[in-house]
């Protein structure tokens, strides 16, 4: 099914919903790379990748996630992962990505992690 990417926003966090696979085969990882680079170039600094419907990832997909994470960190931004599962979670665990990049099961919790410390919705 290739890779389908849809983008939405919640406050200053940009959420990418990924559906399908991010592998080198059919240019899916290239598409993901292009989308992420475009967002970062446009000034996005807080990114949440929703992996709930991502079925496969290979080294090309892993590399793009890490490259984006490194690039955002260098520019004072951050990146989080939402609901990785199955084979995708297995791959991210094997390369210890899951130990370094914050990963969440709950979207509200993920969005809260981007807020500066001491921030509360009522303040």
């Amino acid at each position, binding site marked *: *099914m290739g890779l389908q990417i849809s983008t939405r926003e919640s406050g200053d966090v940009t959420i990418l919903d990924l559906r399908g696979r991010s592998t080198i*085969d*059919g240019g899916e990882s290239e598409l993901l790379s292009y989308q992420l680079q475009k967002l970062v170039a446009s000034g996005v600094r807080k990114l949440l990748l929703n992996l709930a419907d991502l079925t496969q990832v*290979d080294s090309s997909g892993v*590399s*793009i996630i*890490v*490259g984006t*994470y490194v690039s955002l960190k260098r520019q004072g931004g951050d990146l989080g992962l939402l609901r990785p599962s199955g084979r995708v979670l297995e791959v991210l665990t*094997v390369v210890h990505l899951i130990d370094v990049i914050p990963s969440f099961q709950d979207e509200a919790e993920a969005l809260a992690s981007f807020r500066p410390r001491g921030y509360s919705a009522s303040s």
Partner: protein
Amino acid sequence: MTTPCSGAVAPTTQKTALLVASGGEVDELLTNVLASEGWSIQRIVDNQHILALARAKPFDLIVTGRETRVAEDVELLRKIRGARPHVRLIILTDKFTPGDVISAMREGAFSYFSAPFEASELAEMVRAAMAEPCWDDGIEVLSGTPEWVTLTARCDLATADRLVQFLHGVRDPSIPEAEKDHVIFAFKEILINAMEHGGHFDPSQHVEISFIRARRAIACRVKDPGEGFSLEELRHAAAGSSPNDLFSHARVRDARGMRPGGFGILLAKKLVDELIYNEKGNEVVLVKYLDPPESPII
């Protein structure tokens, strides 16, 4: 070998597919994929009339039915290729033996799906068959027994995909599926590295591959046509990152303006038991050990 693009189809002609009925979801899926691209589809109920039809008229793609044995499909393919050497034929089968994959590759099948298989994977392969302008001789079996297969693969991603699908088609009950998936994943990472860094994705270049099935291990050997490399020099690969700083290679790549990458070797290392490079660095062996079969209780 024929020239790489000898099977190219003129882009202006309507492409035609011959589909043998498999029933249910598979037939519907194939129809949807092909029709959405404007292909003309001819359907038949079994393999019996494929040969006569294929001899009478060129088809760009033929997909066999699941009910026939692979040996019959392969014999059919051999006869069709006698008249139509560039035909793309995808074998679907519910009736197979572990060695059938070798004969399917040897006779030049475009792809091979043994049950159970993912319909979405079949759809991707059909799309590849539709899009791939040249495929002949991408995979050439040099020698093959059920325990040891040696072949060459052309340095392009489409050929890598086809080869990987053939591996998924191997159904050996003595190899747990999870272990097989790990080996195939690791192999694909190493294969693409070899094609990219050793062969520069140059379709005139080939990677040499061997698969060896021992009683308690599976081994894959991949030799690329390049100059090789040293793992110690790979500061831009994850395998060269410090254990305390997993992404140091990514910062090296970022600073050098290199595209994201470098996780292939690390992933492969984690998924098999041994990854052994030769001195030059252009040849690598992957080894996965298998648990011994359980002894019968006496």
